[in-house]
């Protein structure tokens, strides 16, 4: 990479990182909300048994993190396989009718604002290399991303650890305490974690960080109280002597 292209390389890295942030934000917010819901529900049923709440929280967190990671892996792989099949099909078509690829690329360039002679010359230059022509046809005309952009295993790993990290917030208070103290601490720090995550998500997506953070926070508090209510109800109907 020549030195003067370094800023572009930085932009590419940032875009790639933002793409990975999707898995991180999704995994962590799921870990925070679902495990907060779980521990709040169990707390509702067993308000004074912090250890039980913690064990169920940890077990649930790992089970759900594995499930989320496997889900991410399988869906990423499926998406990758489908994408690869589409690219192969597009390549077969391209080999049969290269003129069609040139004509459609010409139209694409003209739609983007080039005049016809300039667009023609650009496509002609690109056409001097079959691979370059196909890549441009694939990206600009068909809108198919490159397969190399996707890494299913990395996505799954990010998802797993993000989920576990998220789950730590609602579970930890029950490891070191119990009762309402642990419960409200769990809701509090989960809310703060979600607020921060929402802030980060807003910042990365160039939206209002405060708006995004508030949305995440409200969802967390809502999930915590609803789950506790469900736990209370279940314990009243099924666990009462």
């Amino acid at each position, binding site marked *: 990479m020549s030195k003067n292209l370094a800023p572009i390389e930085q932009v590419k890295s940032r875009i790639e990182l933002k793409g990975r942030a999707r898995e991180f934000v999704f995994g962590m917010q799921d870990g925070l909300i679902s495990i907060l819901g779980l521990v709040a529900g169990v707390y509702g049923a067993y308000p004074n048994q912090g250890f039980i709440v913690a064990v169920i929280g940890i077990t649930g967190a790992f089970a759900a993190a594995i499930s989320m990671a496997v889900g991410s892996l399988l869906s990423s792989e499926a998406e990758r396989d489908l994408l690869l099949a589409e690219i192969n099909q597009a390549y077969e078509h391209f080999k049969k009718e290269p*003129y069609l690829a*040139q*004509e459609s690329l*010409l139209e694409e360039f003209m739609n983007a604002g080039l005049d*016809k*002679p300039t*667009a*023609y*010359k650009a*496509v002609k230059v690109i056409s001097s290399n079959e691979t370059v022509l196909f890549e441009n046809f694939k990206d600009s005309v068909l809108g198919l991303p490159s397969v190399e952009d996707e890494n299913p295993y990395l996505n799954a790993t990010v998802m797993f650890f993000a989920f576990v990290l998220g789950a730590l917030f609602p579970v930890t208070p029950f490891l070191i305490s119990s009762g309402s103290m642990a419960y409200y601490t769990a809701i509090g720090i989960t809310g703060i974690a979600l607020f921060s995550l929402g802030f980060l998500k807003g910042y990365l997506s160039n939206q209002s960080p405060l708006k995004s953070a508030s949305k995440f926070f409200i969802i967390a508090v809502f999930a915590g109280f609803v789950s506790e209510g469900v736990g209370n109800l279940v314990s009243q109907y099924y666990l009462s002597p």
Partner: protein
Amino acid sequence: MLSINDKVPSFSALGVNGSATREYSDKDLAGKWSIIFFYPEDFSFICPTEVTGFNRHIEEVKKLDTQIIGISVDPVDMHKEWIKELGIKYPLISDEDGKIAKSFGVLDEADNRAHRATFIISPQLNIEFTMVTSRNVGRSVEETMRVLRAIQSGNLCPADYDPVKEE
């Protein structure tokens, strides 16, 4: 569409030869053989294969006392750039309103562009050969040249007869 022995309809439009622009009309066809070919548009990727195909035969065409004229709905300025881009050595007529293509019966009215149509016209302005192909299929320049040679031989010509190969 015009057919064999039909007279060339009268027309008049601006055309470009090299960098020179002038008015072309059916009168330019009188007294010598002509290959008139219509094509959809300049700066596309099928058309130049045909346009340069005719260009490669320009010397032979001259020896056969024949002229080649290409016609599309593109404006004169576009033709100028196209001629420069491909090094075309024969005139391109600008049929912007599609009237010439329509009078020959080869205008695709759906998008106001000409079909890929080829006509060989005698010095007496009679149509001697017509061929039109689908938009997606480029015409055979070799076949047009063979037919021109066969017609000019004045012989009764069996399939694929080519005076050049008979010599």
